[in-house]
């Protein structure tokens, strides 16, 4: 058989890549994110120093040839800590958003599809969750559960579930009335298949864009919670924790807070750019011309 008859999956992802390739800005986002991921994965090879190694003689040194981004109040290398910190930030952001996305959109699709009293009760709870500022809610849960990595992820995932539920519910209500869902029912598709195969992919772009935006927010929240001491505990390097430590010396040692802040800024920016590009690429109508 010729390659035109291969199944749809590989061709579809090729088409998505083809669209991404045409969007120049998406490459900037992708390259930045790839660099950060690369940095996180190969941290032991890239870091010039041990991120935990204290050195009182070199404490609070400005950037120099030996310590490219300077040292902190314990004499630890800021660059090395930044590189290792990427691991925590990315892991927390990715895992927390993956959980929030999965649980939140499941709740939203079910509420939208089932409707009625179930919808009202579930979305009422979601609205209560949305009424709290996410940071406050995260703070509450993290304080309740205790400060460690798993609890930080749980806290962030929990606070970010509600927006996903909202974003998944609205298109579900519209989609379940669409002709192709009706036609699917007439062809004997069960409710789970309709929700999973016919409704979900039609709003995947909404959820994915939300995912990238909220991953940026999760990374910010990780930093915020670590900043106030409710995140990963010292001496494990995290960007938020580094900013907190640097904040105390901001007037005398600017490099301590600035570089982790820049790292967060770049990561969040890359995720937002990529999220927008993904949205454009996933919608088959927007990539009709180059799909062939």
């Amino acid at each position, binding site marked *: 058989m010729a390659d035109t008859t291969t199944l749809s999956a590989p061709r579809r992802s090729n088409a998505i890549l083809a669209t991404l390739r045409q969007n120049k800005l998406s490459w900037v986002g992708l390259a930045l994110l790839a660099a950060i991921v690369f940095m996180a994965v190969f941290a032991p090879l890239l870091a010039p120093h041990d991120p935990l190694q204290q050195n009182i003689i070199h404490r609070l040194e400005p950037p120099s040839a030996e310590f490219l981004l300077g040292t902190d109040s314990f004499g630890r290398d800021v660059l090395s800590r930044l590189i290792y910190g990427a691991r925590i930030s990315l892991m927390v952001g990715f895992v927390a958003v993956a959980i929030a996305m999965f649980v939140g959109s499941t709740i939203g699709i079910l509420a939208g599809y089932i409707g009625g009293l179930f919808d009202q009760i579930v979305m009422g709870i979601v609205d209560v969750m949305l009424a709290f500022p996410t940071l406050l809610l995260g703070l509450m849960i993290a304080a309740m559960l205790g400060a460690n990595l798993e609890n930080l992820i749980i806290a962030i995932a929990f606070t970010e579930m509600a927006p996903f539920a909202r974003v998944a519910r609205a298109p579900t209500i519209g989609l379940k009335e669409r002709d192709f869902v009706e036609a699917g029912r007439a062809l*004997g598709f069960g409710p789970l298949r309709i929700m999973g195969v016919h409704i979900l992919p039609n709003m995947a772009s909404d959820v994915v864009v939300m995912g990238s935006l909220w991953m940026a927010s999760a990374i910010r929240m990780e930093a915020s919670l670590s900043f106030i001491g409710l995140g990963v505990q010292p001496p494990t390097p995290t960007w938020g924790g580094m900013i907190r430590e640097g904040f105390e010396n901001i007037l005398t040692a600017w490099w301590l807070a600035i570089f982790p802040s820049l790292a967060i800024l770049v990561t969040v920016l890359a995720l937002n750019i990529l999220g927008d590009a993904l949205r454009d690429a996933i919608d088959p109508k927007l990539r009709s011309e180059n799909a062939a």
Partner: protein
Amino acid sequence: MTDPVLDVRGLQSEFRIAGRWYPAVRDFTLAVEANETVALVGESGSGKSATALSILRLLPAVGARIAKGSVMFAGQDLARLSEAEMIRLRGEAIAMIFQEPMTSLNPTMTVGAQIAEVIEIHRGSTRRSAMAEALRLLEEVRIPAARQRLNDYPHQFSGGMRQRVMIAMALACRPKLLLADEPTTALDVTIQGQVLALLNELKQSYGMSILFITHNLGVVAQMADRVAVMYAGEIVEFASVNKIFEQPSHPYTEVLLKAMPRVDRDSAGLEPITGQVPGITALPVGCAFAPRCPLRQPDCDRHPALAPLAAEADHVVRCVVRAGQEAAV
């Protein structure tokens, strides 16, 4: 003749409006024989689509119900099957095609995958063999270059082509009965002709029966063996297609035919039907057509039953005047 494929008796479907139940389909009794096409004809709001949705139990779960009657199909009463049993049956033994081919396909799946999906869930086939079958079906519904089009998305197809894909999906499991709800209404006339010819051909080769819903009498003439004319949720006349056109007996059928443009008649002879179909919340007590009827008599205040026309058992009409019948309560 063998048992009918579909035997609907006394079906009544109701919708809830402002807390009360109102019938959209009333006392609907109709049998579809094997390999036969029965057309359901009527204006918008006459209950044609509600009837088809009732047969497949696709009325909304909330605010709609089948209040009375039975829908016998393959020895089972569909009105009493569980939803799980209906899910197995839909697309397998009874399939349905819809009016809007432009929006009736999932925009995120290739047409091949969508046809294959039907085969996979009902037949438990592997993806590979289902895709091979999908290709065969696309060729059968005459999609040009079917092998290349298999992996195209619906937006790359025209309306007529999409309706062909819908037909392929509906036929994927060789159903005994096809419910076609105005399948050509959204298509232009030449494409409509092609799709109808295709349906007729497939009906023969698959040996299936078709319940064909339309408001287009030209389409009825081309497709139907027998015709049921619906008005305000009821069948008002049921006969073979020739009798309906040659000897329309219900005054509504008559005016419907007079309102149809014909090549062989002067278009100045077209007569519009005055008034509108009564809404389901304001049905007249007697004959539903009486307020618009040119033959109205005092007797029409009583609700007429569907009765055979004098000396013709297979031509039934719901009219006191024409049937010369005793009016039912």
